[in-house]
């Protein structure tokens, strides 16, 4: 497995898009949070911007920013990392050169797993550094009070990239695949949930969609809309962390299985 990931690394590390995507993630993750320093104050009932930078609330704020970056940059990279292999016909050459289809499968998922792990470690690092620098009195219990978010952050990252890989594998063409990835997450799924599902059946089940579950792994902080929604609909706007984890695991496993069976059967 390590051998396969190392081969993928050889493909990635000199690729311009990979470097740009990594740079954006590395700079923007702490950068966007620190922009909060320039905000005068947050909308009520929160008020002061201090919560953005102190333990334990920083876990959620930094995580929420990370979720957007993972969706946008890492998911995007995941899509094109596979479509470019189809465009250059390098995937079939990898097989001609001696990889089995299982090797291809393990290399792709192993490497997005490794990338998710690195992204998560960097997230933890950013939280710890910014948190320690801004919290006046640091209690270890406070620092890790919200640390259960860490595995969820990893799952969020891995699931966006799995979804990206699946679309890349099925669609094969870069532009269409990237478009589909973005449109599905930003427009199509919300439209189905809010326009169709809620219209037909206003029930909590409208939240159990694959990408919504991934989003809810790191729920949006400061949402007055969320409270309004509860009063109106009678159920929460978000899945609970556990619901989000289980739903995501089910969908992500299904996506992995789809890629696996497609890869096993397809003529390349």
């Amino acid at each position, binding site marked *: 497995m390590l051998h396969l990931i190392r081969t993928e690394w050889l493909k990635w590390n000199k690729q311009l898009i990979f470097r740009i995507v990594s740079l954006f993630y590395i700079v923007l993750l702490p950068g966007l949070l620190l922009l909060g320093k320039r905000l005068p104050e947050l909308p009520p009932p929160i008020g002061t911007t201090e919560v953005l930078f102190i333990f334990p609330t920083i876990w959620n704020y930094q995580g929420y920013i990370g979720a957007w970056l993972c969706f946008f940059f890492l998911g995007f990279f995941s899509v094109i990392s596979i479509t470019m292999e189809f465009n250059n016909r390098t995937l079939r050459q990898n097989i*001609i*050169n001696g990889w089995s289809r299982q090797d291809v499968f393990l290399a792709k998922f192993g490497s997005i797993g490794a990338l998710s792990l690195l992204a998560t470690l960097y997230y933890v690092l950013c939280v710890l550094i910014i948190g320690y620098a801004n919290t006046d009195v640091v209690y270890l219990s406070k620092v890790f009070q919200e640390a259960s978010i860490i595995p969820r952050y990893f799952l969020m990252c891995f699931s966006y990239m799995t979804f990206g890989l699946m679309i890349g594998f099925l669609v094969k063409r870069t532009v269409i695949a990237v478009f589909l990835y973005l449109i599905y997450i930003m427009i199509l799924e919300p439209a189905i949930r809010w326009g169709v599902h809620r219209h037909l059946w206003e029930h909590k089940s409208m939240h159990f969609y694959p990408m919504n579950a991934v989003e809810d792994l790191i729920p949006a902080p400061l949402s007055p809309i969320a409270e309004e929604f509860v009063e109106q609909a009678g159920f929460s706007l978000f899945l609970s962390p556990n619901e989000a984890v289980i739903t995501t695991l089910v969908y992500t496993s299904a996506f992995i299985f789809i890629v696996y069976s497609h890869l096993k059967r397809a003529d390349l």
Partner: protein
Amino acid sequence: MILDTQHLSKRFGSLTAVNQLNLQIEKGTVFGMLGPNGSGKTTTLGMVLGIIHPTSGSYSWFDGKGGENPRRQLGALLETPNFYPYLSAADNLKIVAQIKRIAKPAIDESLDLVNLLHRKHSKFKTYSLGMKQRLAIASAMIGDPQVLIFDEPTNGLDPQGIAEVRETIRQIASTGKTIIMASHILDEVEKICSHVAIIKNGNLLATGPVGAIINDEILIEVGAQDKVQLKAFLTQLPPLSRLEETDFGFLLYLKEALPTADLNGQAFAAGVTLTHLRQRQKSLEAEFLEITNQN
């Protein structure tokens, strides 16, 4: 046996691309797969290289003794040279070596073999078509495999490129490696290969040593002013097997040798003055057209 296919078939919908193909390729041969474009050569290679699933039939490499993944012991180039455009030649070959699990690949030697060592650090996308094709050959040579597979290796190259690639393949063949080469260019197969399989519309029409496929009939081109008189003279020649009318006169197929001087003398004695007389070897091209037309 290097490769053995048993009733290998591939259908795409209603189209049968490869039909019940039985090929046996022995160690040390330079095996040409000859057929017009779209005859199923690439599909066949795609199947034995694991990228296309056969509809039916089977194949085995090295009599099934090639380990868990015998493709690692082959060097293959299918259709176009496929590399990562943003990586240099050396980095691309490193990836190939990783996949083949070769710890210390002789990258410089492979590049030197195809005259690309001086462009080792250039990105693949800056290469000309001929250089890309040569890099593909270098890539196939990584790990010094005993079997090399080339699919239309001279496609799209200029005459100099074609000559270079053929020379490289000939060099490789002289080291005793088994080479499987698909081509629609007869001349290429005739010049390089020891064995040939002729394929059309997915069917195997003929297979065997190039010498056996080219039968040993002797061909003589004969021309005269009076074609009727010439024909009358030729038809009574004892070793004649067949006569074919052409623009210059007739093409004689003889069962046994007849020196052109004798033929000329006999014709003159019979009152026919020849205006054209030339002995020629029957080419694979003629044989190929004959075989494909019969089917």
